[in-house]
C-alpha cells in the first residue's frame, strides 16, 4: 500500500500501551509500512537502524522520527505509533510518538524528504504530543492528526 505520509489513515496508526524497546517498536512499524510492498523488512530495519546510529532522530520534544531512504520506492510510506507511557531511547530521551517513514532514494525526493522532517518537527510540539497521549483509540488519534 503506497501512501502519502501526510494523509495518514487509521491503519497506519498504532496505540502502544505495553511498549518494550525502541528497536522492537521500529520493527513493529516497519512491518506496517512494508505490508503490501516488495520491500524486505530485514533490509529496511538495517537501513533505519544505520540511520539511527548516526545522529539520533529523537528530538527532546518526545518525537522520534526513524526513517530511511530506500531504493525501489517511488513514493513516501509512513506509520505512526503513540506511546502514552513513553520509552527511553539510547540517549535517555523519552519517546512518546514514533513516526517512521521511508522515502525514495532518488535525489529529486530529498527536498520533499527534508520538508517532511521539518513538518513533523514543527507539528509534534510537546503540547500536541501530550494531547495525543491522552487519546484512547486510533480513530481519535487519526481525527486529531492534521494530515
Amino acid at each position: 500500500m503506497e501512501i502519502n505520509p501526510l494523509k495518514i489513515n487509521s491503519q497506519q496508526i498504532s496505540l502502544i500501551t505495553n511498549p518494550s524497546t525502541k528497536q522492537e517498536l521500529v520493527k513493529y512499524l516497519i512491518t506496517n509500512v512494508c505490508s503490501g510492498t516488495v520491500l524486505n523488512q530485514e533490509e529496511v530495519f538495517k537501513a533505519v537502524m544505520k540511520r539511527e546510529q548516526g545522529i539520533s532522530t529523537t528530538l527532546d520534544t518526545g518525537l522520534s522520527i526513524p526513517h530511511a531512504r530506500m531504493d525501489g520506492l517511488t513514493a513516501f510510506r509512513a506509520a505512526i505509533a503513540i506511546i502514552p507511557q513513553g520509552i527511553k531511547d539510547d540517549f535517555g530521551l523519552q519517546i512518546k510518538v514514533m513516526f517512521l517513514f521511508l522515502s525514495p532514494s532518488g535525489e529529486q525526493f530529498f527536498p520533499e524528504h527534508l520538508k517532511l522532517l521539518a513538518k513533523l518537527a514543527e507539528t509534534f510540539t510537546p503540547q500536541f504530543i501530550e494531547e495525543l497521549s491522552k487519546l484512547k483509540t486510533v480513530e481519535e488519534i487519526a481525527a486529531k492528526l492534521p494530515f
Partner: protein
Amino acid sequence: MNPEDTQTGLQKNSKVKSVVVISTAMLTFITFWKAAAIVLCDFGSSAFYAGGIAYNAFGPAFPWYILGVSFFSGLLLMMYLESCSMFTRSGVFPVVSAGLGEKAAQLAASALLFDMALTGPISGLSAGNYLIGLINSTLAIFKINFTLNPEMFSMIFAAAVVIYFWYQNVKGIADSSEKSAKIIKLSLIICGILFVWSGITLALRGTVTLPPLKPQLTQEAMGWVVNIPFMQKVGYIGVLIALGHSVLALSGLETLAQVFRELEYPKIQNLKKTALIIFVFAVVFTGGLTFLSYLIIGPKNLPQYSDNMLSGLAMSLTGPTILKLILQAAVVFAGGLMLCGAVNTSIIGANGTMNRIAESGILTDWFRKIHKKYGTTYHMINTICIAQLIVIFLSRGKVYLIGQAYAFGVLWSFVFEMVSIVILRFKNREQKREFMMPFNIKFDHFYIPVGAIFVGLVVVALAGINLITKKVATISGVSFGLVLYTIFYISSRLNAKKANIMFEEGPREKLNETQVPELSKALENLPYKENVLVTVKDANKLYHFEKVLADLKDTEVNIIVLYARPLENWNAGKNREAVSVDYKELFTQVILKAENFGRQVHPIMVSSNNFFTAAAQTAFAAKAEKIVMGVSGTHGANEQMEYMVMAWAAIPERYQITAEILWPGREVSFKF
C-alpha cells in the same frame, strides 16, 4: 504571554547554556588608507631628520641620495608585498625563519630591535629639535634675548615622550589608526602648502641651483675606508657610501609587514594600494621636501637647519615673516605628531617583534609576563623603553650621533629578509604567492627571481659598505646584536622544554572569554544588519569557514562563528567526549584564517546538549540568513541536513533560512 510558553520542548530542554563571546585584538581590520597612515607615521617621519643627517655625512649632494633611496623604497615595498603574500603574520622573524632558519631569524630580529631602540630616541630628539627651533625663532622674532639649549631641551622632550608612550603601551593602546590617519592628512596638507609656496618662491627668485651629484664625504663618514686608499679613488664607492648614509630614510618599512595582519579584505589588493600610497609619500614627502629644502634654504644656510630642515624650508620661503612663522609652527606641529607617533610605533613594533619571537618559545616566561590589570606584555615594553631612555641620555641630545649608529638594523634586517625571500623562491617553489616581485625569467616550472636578486644584491652592497664606513653603527649594532642574540640563546636554552611544547601545539591566540547571560546579549553589538552563521567543530576541518571567508563578497555581513561545546547530556548521536574539542586551538585557527582573509568574525561558544539546536537557536537569535556547516566525517551531509531541518522547524517563530554544508568539491544547500 511569557516567551517561555511559546517555546517548544526542543527549545526548553536544549536551550543553549553558558554563552561565551570570544574576542581578541586580532579580530578588527583596517582600511588600506589607515594601514598606510600607520606605516607613514613611522616611515614618513624620517623626512624630518634624514636630510640633515645625510648632509652632515656627505655635504650638499644629499637631496639626490635621499630621493634615490625614496625611489628604491618602491622596490623594497614590492619585496614586502611578496613576503606578505606568503605570510599573513609577516615581518622579519617569520620570513627569515622560513628562509634561513631560526638562528638567522634571531640575528635579524636582534638587528631590527637595535633599530627600534634607536627609532624612539632619534624621533623624539628630532621632535624636540623642531620644537626648540620654533621656540627660539619666535623668541628671536619678538626680540626676546633668551634662548634655550637645543640639545638639553630635545633630550628632556624625547625622554618625556618615551615615558608617555611607555605608560600608554603598558595600559594597552586602543586602535590608534584613526589618529595616524589624521596626522598623515595634516602632513599632506602642510606638504602641499610647502610645495606650492616653494614653487612661488623659486619662481620669484628666478634661478634654481641644483645640488651637486658628487658627495663630499667627511673623514667621519668614510669610517674605516680612510685607511683603504684604493676605495677612496673609486667614484662608485663614494656613491655607495653616500647611499649608505641616506638609507636611514627607509627606516620604518618593517611596519608594513607588522600592519599587514590587520589589513581588511581583500587583503593583497589592499596591501598593493597601501604600498602605492607609501611609495608616493616617500618620493614626494621625504624625497621631494628634502630636495626643496636644499633649493630654498641654499647651501650657505643649510648648516643652521641641519637638525630641523623642514623648519628651515618654511622660514626660508619668500613672504611675510609672521606667515612663515605660522607655517613653521604648522610644520613643527605635524612633524612633532608624526615623530612622536614614530616613538610609539617603535615601542609597538619592538613589542610585536619580541612577541613573535616569544611565540616560537624562545623567550622565557619573564619576558612574556602579562600585566595583571592591563593584559599587556609589560616586561617587554619596560625593556624596550629603558633601552630607548639609555640611548637618549647617551646621545646627550645629538640627533647626528644617533644617526651615525642608525640604519645598521634597518639594513641588516633588510639583508636577512631580502635574501630569505630569494631563497624561498627556490625552497618553497610551490607556495602560493598572490604577488611576486617583478622581473622573473621562467625556467621549467619556476621563475628565476632576477628582480628580487637585484634588490638583494643592492641591499647587501649597502649593508657591506655601511659596515666599514659607519663605525659607530657597526660597533654599537654588532655589540647590541650580540648581547640580544646571547639573551635569545640563553633564554631559548632555559625555555627549551616549553619551546618544544609550543612548537608541537603551534602558537595560541590570547583569547578573551566573556560570559553573557543569553544569546541575544552576545549578538547585540554586531556592526551590520545581515548575518551568516558558520558552525565549527574541528580545528583541522575549516574548509567551509574558509570558503565563506573567500566567497562572501558582501563585506557588510557579520560572520558569526559558533562552537557548541557538548554538555554532559549530549544527544546528537555520538558520545560527548568524541565531539568535545580543544576550543582554544579551534578558535586560534578560526582567528588565523579570518586574519588571512582580513575579515572580521564574531566567535561565540555555547554549551548545549545538541549541536543542531544550538546552531538553530543562535541563527534565530542573530536573524541569520544562512547557516553554513562543514561535513561531518561520521554522519554525512544528508544526515546533517536532516537534523538541521528538524532543529530549525522546532523554532516557533522561525523564518525562511538557507542551510549549506560545504566540503571540498561539493556542497548541499537547502532553503526551508
